[in-house]
């Protein structure tokens, strides 16, 4: 049996990107929520992501790395087309990462300044990621409507990250901050719902191939299970936030899991819309694939190493389980 390596790598790349969006998504969401908290709460919020943000960001490097290794032709096309938003995202990520390190060591107005840069970096990175997604789905078409669409996706992704960040805080904090986070989560959910709704309506209008895949097929009815499941997740998320807010017995993990599930479903829809293209309407994964020798060289390594990565990531989440405290170095 021969493996269809481009397909395997498309799957790995997709999963790495999904892992990035969910994992760094909650970091970026926490960063965007920072200005809404008191200084003591800000410390706990940043501490809740302290042991994780670095590894979380690495998923982006892996995703882009696989695009580069497995689909070198597409890597160049996609990234030159997205030149400026990529620059904005990178500067955002640099500001966020530096602010994380520097705010811990700063006092007074210096810390205040780094808090704002933390927020700014998180926002720039989130918005530009959504913006890039919007450009990508529409095949980098030029024109005002397409840019507006990309901006709406950017705003929607910010909402999604706020939702992830808020539900992460529900899980990782207690007391007044947790109550605040529940309110944030509900706002984030409303914002995300609006974003997903707008994007779902607009995508078939701006991207023809997406319309065909969803509406000009006998599968349309079955495909509608996807948005239906998303609505169910959102309802369950809203309810579990309500139970937690009223102090009724409820899992503090549930909101985050529902939020993550919404992202998984949105991702599945996106993957279905795009497949088998890596550059929409232009280049399929097989057109863009690297030479089999290069794919094989990475595949064998990945088979050995990825389970190890998964193993010590789980280990890390076990070591750092529980509620965040004010000081990181206890």
């Amino acid at each position, binding site marked *: 049996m021969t493996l269809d390596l481009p397909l395997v790598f498309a799957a790995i790349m997709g999963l790495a990107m999904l892992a990035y969006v969910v994992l760094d998504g909650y970091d970026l969401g926490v960063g965007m929520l920072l200005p809404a908290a008191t200084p003591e709460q800000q410390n706990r919020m940043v501490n809740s992501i*302290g*042991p*994780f943000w*670095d*590894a979380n*960001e*690495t998923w982006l*490097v*892996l995703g*882009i*790395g*696989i*695009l*580069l*290794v*497995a689909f*070198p*032709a597409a*890597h*160049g*096309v*996609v*990234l*030159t087309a*997205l*030149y*400026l938003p*990529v*620059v904005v995202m*990178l*500067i955002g*990520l*640099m*500001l*966020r*990462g*530096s602010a*994380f*390190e*520097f705010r811990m*060591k*700063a006092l007074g107005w210096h810390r205040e300044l780094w808090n704002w840069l933390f927020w700014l970096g998180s926002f720039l990175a989130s918005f530009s990621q959504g913006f890039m997604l919007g450009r990508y789905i529409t095949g980098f078409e030029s024109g005002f409507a397409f840019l507006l669409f990309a901006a709406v996706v950017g705003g929607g992704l910010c909402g999604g990250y706020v939702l992830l960040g808020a539900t992460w805080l529900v899980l990782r904090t207690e007391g007044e901050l947790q109550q605040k986070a529940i309110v944030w989560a509900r706002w984030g959910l409303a914002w995300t719902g609006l974003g997903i709704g707008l994007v779902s309506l607009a995508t078939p209008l701006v991207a023809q191939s997406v319309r065909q895949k969803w509406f000009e097929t006998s599968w349309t009815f079955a495909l509608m299970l996807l948005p239906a499941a998303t609505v169910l997740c959102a309802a369950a998320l809203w309810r579990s936030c309500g139970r937690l807010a009223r102090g009724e017995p409820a899992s503090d993990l549930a909101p985050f899991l529902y939020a993550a599930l919404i992202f998984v479903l949105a991702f599945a829809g996106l993957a279905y819309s795009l497949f088998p293209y890596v550059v929409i309407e232009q280049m399929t994964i097989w057109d863009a694939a*690297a*030479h089999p*020798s*290069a794919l094989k*060289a*990475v595949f064998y*390594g*990945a088979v050995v*190493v990825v389970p190890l*990565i998964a193993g*010590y*990531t789980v280990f*890390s989440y076990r*070591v*750092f389980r529980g509620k965040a405290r004010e000081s*990181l*170095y*206890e």
Partner: protein
Amino acid sequence: MQDALQLARAQFGLNIGFHILFPSITMALAWILVFFRVRLARTNDPVWRVSYQLWTKVFALTFGMGVVTGVLMSFQFGTNWPGYMRAVGNVAGPLLAYEVLTAFFLEATFLAVMLFGINRVPQWLHVLSTVLVAVGTTLSAFWILALNSWMQTPAGHVIEDGQLIAGSWLQVIFNPSFPYRFTHMMFASGLTGSFLIIGLSAWRLLKEPADRAAASALRTGIVVAAVLAPLQIFAGDQHGLNTLEHQPAKIAAMEAAWETRTRMPLVLFALPNEKERRNDYALEIPGAASLILKHDLDAEVRGIGDFAPDAPPVAPLFFAFRVMVGTGVVMLLAAWTGLWLTRRGAVPARWALWGFAALTFVGWIATLAGWLVTEIGRQPWLVTGVLRTADAVGPVSEASLGSSLTSYILTYALMLISYIVVLTHLAGKGVEVMQ
């Protein structure tokens, strides 16, 4: 298009030059932390606890800077050099992928355990985490230098179906210049990291002469530097001979040797004149270059004229090489003087501490100078004999390049100033006050 090429090169040079500042510290600092951690586990002496905690924080800060500037590198290939991946992606890609897979996750995850987990995991696991972070940084250097060396001295590749692919991965990875470059870079990191420790510990001792932890960290740094400095000079010489064999044009430019001749003089100082193809105001030792390069006073050494037009520019290589060698000699003298001044647990006099503090970032100067020599020395090739830099550049407009370059410069200025301020602040205050 020529301007776009220059802008793209300037931007890549800025990005990778800024990035290398941080790994050049963390690669070695990680192993010094292993030493501190093992000493702490063995002796349980608070001096080692303080050193470990302080330098772990410095490490985390530096590592964080390295991560965020490194993320940028993975995008740069696509945004600015799409031709690179198209031409040699089948070789370069897997090497980069292995760096991500084997190093990045390992470092990031276990650094968190190092930093925040000392009371959450058993001691053996904490020591192991420190070792794994050091292994991760070294693996990262291994893969990226394998790729860098392959671009300098490509080997092991074949052309199949019109595509360049790896014929033998072992030959690709262990290409002719790799062992030399890897050793040279690891020693360079050792010196950069140890001088950072020397400089910042001296700074702390100037403020608080009774700080035992700073005194022992100073001694550790000095011993490491005193051992590595002469080893580095030897490794550098070997690397130079390897370059002479595989990239003679680079050596000719470093030595500002314009024409092929016997009894090649060693140019101590000159202003290389690219237009007239000669050296102005030259100060030379007759035959010394032949002696150093061929170990024979009368041997013939090839000049840059032999390689034109595929030859690198002379002046930047000539000067950068002298800066690198000069700072190397300064580090050797400082480390050996320090060895004497700190014998039997003595704390050096204030003038010496000021001198050490002034040398805190000397390793950066040497590293950047050496990096300029080797990378500019590869021009006009991106991959020697395989791909020209001009053929790899992307279609990005000069306006986009100009605005991104400006944004990067502003962001980097903010990051670098903050980094140095926080570092001196951390080291100056010591650990007790900080907690």
